[in-house]
């Protein structure tokens, strides 16, 4: 028997930062995001004695047994904390693999947490709802490990699809954005991701942002309020099928987001974005907290080729966008 869980990664269009507890507990936050058909996989197989946790790039390895001290290397604090939450179950091998590189702003650590919790819940016989899986992932990342991350990645990965996710002190609400398949497919065709080759941990940028929010820096707060409002306007453009209007708002949102912290963009990213606009892209942004990772661009179909060429000329690697609609799933193979 094998248990396989997969959870999608996501791109967020606007509102990132308002999902940080420092912000949403006071003002209420919201994010417009969509999950992609790229996944973080966790495969669980029963093992006779000790338990192992292995990541696909072999740099991470963790071995533990109930009666011995754990042996581990690499940076496995998140998987370890999740195993602890399930009481370090023995007699299993866990294998983790992701379809995207970590640290690229697609929220893959939230996806990893969600996939791992889903597979361990299925193994342990815990009956968890999608909301409970997401909330447990948040608790482990934010409270137990003190990571300066928000809650959007975990909820996106657990529910899947194109959603407006609202964050209040009293809880999180996931609302599907109602769009016809025709509009959704057109949006998929007009979005493309470009890998800048620069991976970075989001924690430095998010820590700065968290601190600025907590200290009520008026510039940061004003921008976050505006980004939150933009998320709602962008949703409206999507529901009426005005994709170019959506693209223009994406551009506005990026201009606002860039000003949140100096490290969100850099000279190279700015030059790439300017070249993309020159070639016909309407809007775009760096995915995730910023500082590198993927550049997301919205282009009318006739401009996509020129934009792609401009980006590959600058050394970026294109990745087509297709949405996921299912969120986390667990499969049992007999």
């Amino acid at each position: 028997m094998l248990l396989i869980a997969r959870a999608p990664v996501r791109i967020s269009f606007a509102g990132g930062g308002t999902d940080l507890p420092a912000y949403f507990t006071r003002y209420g936050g919201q994010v417009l995001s969509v999950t992609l058909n790229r996944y973080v996989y966790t495969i669980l197989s029963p093992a006779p004695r000790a338990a192992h946790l292995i990541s696909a790039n072999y740099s991470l390895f963790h071995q533990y047994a109930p009666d011995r001290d754990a042996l581990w290397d690499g940076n496995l604090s998140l998987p370890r904390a999740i195993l602890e939450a399930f009481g370090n179950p023995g007699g299993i091998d866990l294998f983790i693999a992701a379809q995207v590189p970590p640290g690229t702003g697609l929220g893959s650590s939230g996806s990893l947490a969600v996939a791992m919790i889903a597979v361990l819940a299925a193994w342990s016989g815990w009956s968890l709802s999608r909301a409970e899986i997401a909330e447990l992932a948040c608790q482990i990342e934010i409270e137990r490990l003190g990571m300066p991350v928000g809650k959007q990645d975990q909820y996106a990965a657990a529910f899947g699809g194109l959603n407006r996710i609202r964050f209040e002190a009293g809880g999180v609400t996931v609302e599907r954005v109602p769009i016809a398949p025709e509009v959704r497919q057109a949006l998929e065709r007009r979005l493309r991701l470009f890998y800048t080759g620069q991976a970075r941990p989001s924690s430095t940028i998010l820590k700065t942002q968290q601190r600025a929010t907590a200290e009520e820096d008026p510039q940061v707060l004003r921008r976050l309020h505006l980004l939150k409002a933009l998320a709602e306007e962008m949703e409206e453009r999507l529901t009426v099928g005005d994709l170019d209007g959506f693209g223009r708002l994406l551009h506005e949102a990026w201009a606002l987001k860039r000003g949140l912290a100096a490290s969100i963009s850099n000279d190279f990213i700015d030059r790439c974005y300017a070249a993309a606009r020159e070639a016909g892209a309407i809007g775009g942004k760096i995915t995730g907290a910023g500082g590198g990772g993927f550049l997301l661009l919205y282009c009318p179909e006739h401009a996509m080729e020129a934009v792609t060429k401009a980006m590959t000329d600058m050394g970026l690697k294109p990745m087509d966008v297709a949405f996921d609609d299912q969120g986390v799933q667990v499969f049992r193979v007999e």
Partner: protein
Amino acid sequence: MWTQWIEEYFDGIHRTLTALPRDTLLQVIAQIEAAARDGHTIFLCGNGGSAATASHFACDLAKGTRRPSAPMVRVVALTDNVPLLTAWANDTEYRYVFAEQLRPLVRPGDLLIAISGSGNSPNVLEAVRVAREAGAFTIGLTGFQGGKLRELVDLCLIVPNTCMEQIEDIHLILQHTITTVLRRTWENAWAAVPILHEEPLPDARRVPGS
């Protein structure tokens, strides 16, 4: 004479269907689909022929879309409880028959489909006001120029015709079209599900604070 009147009627239906705004229809279906999948309740109301369409629509949404793994649609026609409807009419005013039924039931994120050929039925307009106050999304199905309903709802599908019988015919065609599209959408969505057997994940569609 009769042959000519028959042909004129059929012609009117044909031309109206051709002229019907497809983009608005897509938005209507998308709203119903999202609300149903998120577990929100869909309410319907209307008078006369539109009352019959409201009940018929509720029937088809509830039963006609049912498939093993598709969402079970929560749908209520406010036209079906005759004792309650006549009680509100008798004890208050006829204009409150839908609004007062709706008030204790409607929740944020729910959906009201208000059917009125003229777009001016006072009881339908009152229901829309109550739904909007509660944070529900409102859709109008109308004819003529959309009447007062047009400005009051979030999304208005106006059947481009000025003959009440034909407007009501098209409303019925629309409800069957919507039901069919939803059923096919959910069939396809689940046909694409993997080769492997899915371990059932208990499904919380809307998340209260955990």
